[in-house]
């Protein structure tokens, strides 16, 4: 009797859960809302949400259900990332995760949450070369190219500009050390000299002693691999104030409008920063139009990759028929260079193709994507300079 009661209660609970699940299909959207990329993340989240809104406006997923993005905050660090992802996976029962936004968080979340749970993860901005080597059972993707490429391209660009001697200050985390390592290897092998190379910890009030050490090597160019909302800003400020270096070069994390807002464009004439750029394409134009109408700036860093990550997640969920275990394989098949081309915003077309059983090749706002076996994508970069209150392209990077 008792057992029957328990069984019945269990059955009721299951029905209740299934009905709840019928209403919405949940995906996680894990961003660096607080922490050192706080100024970048609003555009990234808005771009991801745009993709979800377009999906819902054009028929939804799995036969008319709404795709719902559950927001989480990774604070751009591994601990908070794991906490938030665990909640999304276990409590919210998401079918896939868009994000997290920072490399360290991606590695930690993938290793200890999503890979064990068999949940697919697409990061729009986790750029560390380490992510390529994850033993992920093909569950981890990114819509942004690896920093292995950015670091090398930046090294070649600087050498081509005639900068032969630099000092490198990098944040002691997966993002900073990955990018700095790739940069240093290429810069020295192509004949440049790295006259100072040091990591620093986040959140200290003074980096003048670090900068004095770096400057003692005699370089007049400082390459900073850090976040422009975090210590990167402090380092740049103290370096400018004390005249340790004349020229400053940042990685993509430094291309934050926070540094222009806080330091003033007039002080940043010698600052340049590399950043991934979307290739001009129909898909990119469609995204730009839709995002501008929604009140966003399509030039914002990682906006295109964030949009693509969300759109691909929706495609994955649809193709896999909502089966969490199949989402990753479905994502890989949705952008592999084979099949009917689908561009940004064309959810209705995608639905029809999937219904007809045809293969899809998603052409992203950020580029053609086309995941390789490691879940990485190729990409292109440009070197940006400060122009008024924003950044403008100085030169493309090869």
């Amino acid at each position, binding site marked *: 009797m008792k057992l029957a009661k328990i069984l019945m209660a269990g059955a009721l609970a299951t029905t209740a859960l299934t009905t709840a699940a019928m209403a919405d299909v949940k995906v996680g959207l894990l961003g660096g809302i607080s922490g050192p990329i706080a100024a970048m993340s609003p555009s990234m989240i808005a771009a991801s949400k745009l993709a979800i809104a377009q999906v819902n406006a054009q028929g939804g997923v799995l036969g008319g259900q709404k795709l719902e993005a559950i927001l989480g905050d990774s604070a751009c660090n591994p601990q908070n990332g794991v906490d938030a992802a665990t909640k999304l996976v276990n409590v919210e029962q998401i079918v896939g995760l868009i994000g997290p936004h920072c490399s360290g968080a991606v590695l930690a979340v993938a290793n200890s949450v999503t890979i064990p749970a068999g949940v697919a993860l697409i990061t729009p901005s986790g750029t560390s070369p380490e992510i390529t080597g994850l033993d992920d059972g093909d569950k981890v993707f990114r819509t942004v190219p690896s920093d292995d490429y950015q670091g090398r391209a930046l090294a070649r660009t600087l050498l081509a500009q005639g900068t032969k001697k630099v000092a490198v200050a990098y944040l002691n985390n997966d993002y900073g050390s990955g990018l700095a390592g790739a940069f240093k290897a290429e810069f020295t092998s192509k004949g440049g000299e790295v006259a100072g190379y040091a990591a620093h910890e986040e959140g200290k*009030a*003074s980096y003048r002693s670090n900068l004095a050490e770096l400057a003692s090597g005699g370089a007049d160019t400082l390459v900073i691999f850090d976040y422009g909302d975090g210590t990167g800003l402090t380092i740049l400020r103290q370096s400018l104030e*004390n005249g340790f270096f004349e020229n400053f070069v940042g990685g993509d994390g430094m291309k934050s409008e926070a540094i222009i807002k806080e330091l003033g464009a007039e002080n940043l004439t010698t600052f340049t920063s590399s950043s991934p750029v979307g290739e001009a394409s129909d898909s990119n134009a469609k995204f730009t139009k839709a995002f501008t109408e929604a009140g966003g700036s399509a030039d914002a860093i990682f906006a295109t990759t964030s949009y693509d990550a969300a759109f691909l997640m929706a495609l994955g969920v649809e193709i896999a028929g909502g089966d969490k275990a199949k989402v990753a394989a479905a994502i890989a098949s949705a952008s592999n260079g084979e099949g009917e081309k689908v561009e940004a915003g064309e959810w209705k077309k995608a639905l029809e193709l999937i219904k007809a059983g045809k293969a899809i090749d998603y052409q992203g706002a950020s580029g053609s994507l086309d995941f390789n076996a490691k879940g990485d994508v190729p990409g292109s970069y440009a070197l940006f300079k400060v122009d008024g209150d924003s950044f403008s392209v100085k030169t493309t990077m090869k």
Partner: protein
Amino acid sequence: MGIYELINFYVIPGLVLGSIYALGAVGITLVFGILRFAHLAHGDLATFGAFTALAVVATTGVNPWIALPVAMVICAALAVGIDKVFYDYLSERPKIITVMASLGIALMLRSLIQVIWGVDTETYTRGIVRPDNYWGFRIRDRELYTLLAMFAITGALWLFLQKTKWGKAMRAMSDNPDLALLSGVDNRLTTMLTWAIVGALCAASGFFLGLNTELKSMMGWTMLLPMFAAAILGGVGRVEGAVLGGLVVGVAEELSVLVLPSEYKAAMAFAILIVILLVRPTGLLKGKLL
């Protein structure tokens, strides 16, 4: 490396940093000494003070220095309020519960800051300030003022504790709360007074940190460890010890770059904390045993 370079780029930044630590450590040492628990919300209270000053600057456009006393008063009121609502309620329980409660307060304060002011990095004034040259020593006005203000504030506090009736009551409570109560000291009022002073000190340390770098919602939390190290190094319960401890920790962190890889700079406070607890648990100036 020349002596000027050593002083300009290592010692002066260390002293400025040390002043900020010192202001925080004095507050920690007071709570430790008088109320007998480790106050983990100290850093976030400092962040709150810094952002309160920012709000004053942003809304009225006054000089940040005028905003400092306003922020100190508001933060003092907040600290008294937190004590009244949370800590006082737990005062009869084992102290570890209050310590854990203060961690909760820290998280609440931080979230409040993020809700009110957002998560972007802010500054009191836009742009950069290049240092002035004094016979080869490169010092910014704000660094000089930070150091002077720290000595002025802690000096005034020291005089208050030594010379006034209420200061004596606070010291009496620090020595033995039951005896103080029997001698006619109003423990409740003394506790409130302590919190008001601690809140004001928090606001000052947050303000100077923000003035010398930037304002971030995590800025106070990351300062907590060096502040505790400074308080314990100086001797728990000793105001002048906390000042000394703060300056030592600040300068040691900056100088550590000369001998250690720079990523270990943050570990300096840990190292000092462990060594002092092993070698001289009462601290440099003979404070209370923990």
